[in-house]
């Protein structure tokens, strides 16, 4: 790399050095708040206010234990919020991936007049910019269906024609049909072929969209804010805790919650870095 740098012209060297400094500053500005949050989570409350930049005098890992009893939104404790987050993340992802997989498989492998329409509609609905259907949605979910509870809300995740559909459709279209044919010859039903032959082959694709879906739901504060006010998730709790606290007491506890909420994401990211980055599609993560 240094050899390549020496080959550049002077003007290019200046540009590269400048960009490198810019990148470093930007990278530090991203990492620093997290380091700062981690250090703050280990301080006493007084220390936090008095010495903003100092290292904690004693590294109070006990703050994390305190957080479990003191970080509360109404009746929900930290443990409750983690539970709510886990439930929503895993069941929401399961429902979303299973429904999209089923629709994508049929549209890709059982073509008939309906599948063409379905595919067109799926693409169309993704580009059409519908503004403000929230009132109608909110009215339907809360007033008419009363789905604003941890079970009912799963219906919102059970969409079969979003980005997951597009990705899995592309995958199923390219998957070889010969194993399935062999299965049919041996007398397997369509169910058996789907569950025993196709799904195992699709596992890598399913795992990668599941990871993205998990990250999205774990981080989402909007859906719980609208529909699950009595069952706050960790992301919602972090938002609400800040609002509820008119006087800021024991801020380090708050940082403990922040650190705990990003820890699973960071671990997942470390394990599946390439999978996550490769599968990032336009709008797929922050949706």
């Amino acid at each position, binding site marked *: 790399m240094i050899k390549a740098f020496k080959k550049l012209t002077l003007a290019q060297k200046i540009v590269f050095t400048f960009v490198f400094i810019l990148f470093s500053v930007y*990278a530090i500005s991203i990492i620093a708040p997290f380091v700062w949050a981690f250090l703050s989570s280990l301080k006493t409350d007084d220390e936090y206010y008095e010495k903003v930049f100092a290292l904690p005098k004693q590294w109070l890992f006990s703050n994390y234990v305190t957080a479990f009893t003191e970080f509360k939104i109404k009746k929900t404790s930290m443990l409750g919020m983690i539970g709510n987050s886990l439930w929503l993340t895993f069941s929401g992802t399961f429902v979303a991936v299973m429904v999209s997989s089923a629709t994508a498989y049929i549209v890709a492998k059982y073509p008939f007049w309906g599948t063409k329409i379905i595919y067109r509609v799926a693409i169309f609905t993704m580009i059409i910019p*519908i503004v403000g259907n929230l009132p109608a949605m909110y009215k339907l979910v809360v007033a008419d269906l009363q789905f604003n509870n941890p079970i009912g809300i799963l219906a919102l995740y059970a969409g079969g024609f979003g980005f997951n559909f597009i990705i899995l459709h592309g995958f199923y279209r390219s998957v070889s049909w010969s194993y399935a044919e062999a299965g049919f010859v041996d007398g397997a039903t369509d169910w058996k072929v789907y569950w025993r032959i196709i799904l195992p082959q699709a596992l890598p694709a399913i795992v990668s969209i599941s990871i993205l879906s998990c990250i999205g739901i774990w981080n989402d*504060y909007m859906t719980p804010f609208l529909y699950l006010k009595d069952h706050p998730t960790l992301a919602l709790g972090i938002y609400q805790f*800040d609002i509820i606290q008119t006087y800021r007491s024991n801020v380090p506890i708050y940082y403990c919650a922040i650190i705990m*909420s990003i820890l699973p*994401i960071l671990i997942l990211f470390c394990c599946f870095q390439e999978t996550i980055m490769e599968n990032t599609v336009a*709008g797929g993560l922050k949706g």
Partner: protein
Amino acid sequence: MSDNLAQGIPVKKKTLQSRKIQRGFFIGLMLSVGIIQFLVFWVYVNFNSILMAFQLQTREGLIWTFENFSRFFHELSIADFELDLALKNTLLLFVVGTVIGLPTSLLFSYYLYKKILFSKFFRVIFFLPSIISAAVLVALFRYMLAVDGPVNAILSSISGKVVDIEWITDEAYSMGTILFYVFWTGFGSNIVLFTGAIHRIPQDVLEYARLDGVSMTRELLQIIVPLIWPTISTLLVFATAGLFTNSGPILLFTQGQHKTMTIGYFIFDQVQNNSYYYPAAIGLIFTAIGFPLVIIVKWLLGKILEDVEY
């Protein structure tokens, strides 16, 4: 494909028929959940949303009216309702996030591709804001920008004077702070998409250009941009589609106070206050503006450069 099982296998007519019924049953069941969900939460919701725009809840019950629309145009002209401000802020978010943000991400991606020192490390770090909850990012941002927080402390020590700017609650700074946040945290997924697209360009094309002594500016603008045009135009179309829907992180920062209202948040706020019919009308108005806009942008982007294949 649906006749696969019939080919080459002697089957009795009767079993073939029952097989067909079974298959129809299978297809129907597999599609059922997705289609029902779509009919309820997309077709019904959007249809009802249009109806609601023309409805109003009065003491006599639900009435049909254009009241919601005239209310909107009336309130738009009165500064106190902040609708004109909301429109301005919404456009500002688009300008900062997309018009400035996308080219910046592209420039970042180009230098990452050029294998600047530690480029792999930078790529991973730059991606982090896209996978961490906005609730967390904004919380940290707010604490960093608190009156007695680190940012003011650093500014104080640099300037030698006491700096106690209220970055989030002072009207003079609040929207600027939010725009900065949107810009600063918005690169991640775009960089991943752009670097991915640049790496998929056949490398010999770039190699030839380099042998011909093409400058870096020309390499970026005249070779790379046209070759990754499909990625760029897709991102632009989606950004345009989200123009009025994207409320920005207003809920997390200010709940619309301190002159930070946006169209998306205005609708959200109305719903929170149990007003459903008026925001539905506002939504319909902006859908009517946004839909042709997306079509035009899509057409224009297709005109500028034809989709390339390689």
